[in-house]
């Protein structure tokens, strides 16, 4: 995965672990965590394929725009790689 990533702005139905407030937002990979069983399968008792999981760091300015309390504060979240696409730095 590239260093800078965008969370895909998808809205699939069902159980996903990608918060809506981060969809479409650009961040940088803080660290990669290895592969974990896909929770989108596990939630329904299906055999789960292992998916790479990354910790992605976003600035509050990127997430909330002008409403950010302090634009330089950051938020880290764990996002599965199938939810990420390469992006340019913000």
């Amino acid at each position, binding site marked *: 995965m590239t260093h800078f990533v965008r969370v895909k702005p998808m809205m699939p139905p069902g159980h996903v*672990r*990608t*918060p809506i*407030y981060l969809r479409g937002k650009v961040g940088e990979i803080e660290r990669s*965590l290895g592969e*974990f069983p896909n*929770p989108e399968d596990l939630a329904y008792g299906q055999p789960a394929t292992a998916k790479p*999981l990354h*910790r992605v760091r976003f600035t509050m300015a990127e*997430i*909330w725009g002008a*409403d950010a*309390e*302090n634009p*330089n*504060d*950051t*938020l*880290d*979240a*764990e*996002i*599965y790689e199938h939810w990420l696409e390469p992006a340019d730095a913000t």
Partner: protein
Amino acid sequence: MPHDHHDNDHLSPSGHPYRADDDTDLSYWQTMEIAVRELLVEKGITTSAEIAGQIETMDARTPSNGAQVVARAWTDPDFHAALIQDASAATRDMGFDIGPLKLIAVENTDDIHNMIVCTLCSCYPRNLLGLPPDWYKSRAYRSRTVREPRSVLAEFGVTLPESTKVRVHDSTADMRYIVIPKRPQETDNMTQAELAALVTRDSMVGTGLAKTP
């Protein structure tokens, strides 16, 4: 006068109102839990004693476990490095039974303040710190912490300079987090046990600071 009520019929001998009995019906999910539990016992997959034992094990986990981890990290540079590298392995090596917990330790410094939240549900390092406080699971804490962490911190009595960066960690998937709070000043001569007494639950969630001696 706090006990100077006029309608004494509704008061206990201590002068306080009687609290209504908690006699509401079971919810759908409570009924489901009982049914599944009884089936598991009937089929011999588990026993009531095993279930009670697990509940006791979880109830025995308290923030003091985390406080010991933090105090050791403050005083033992090798352990500190191991904790930052792999917090699950470091806490297991210290003797804590954390089961399958995958833990990341994040450290507060003069320039960085970390704060933990789970916006999607209530993920918390239960296998080290025990059950989370009720507020941690509230919609208010979960929704506000990612949007206005400094306002939330101020309500917990923590006001940070603008120069300190706030790092919020949203536990969205498989990892759980513990904050290593900043070591208070004038604690150089304290033992690990004395230091552990300064480490509060909130300081390990990032909504508080370690106490000063």
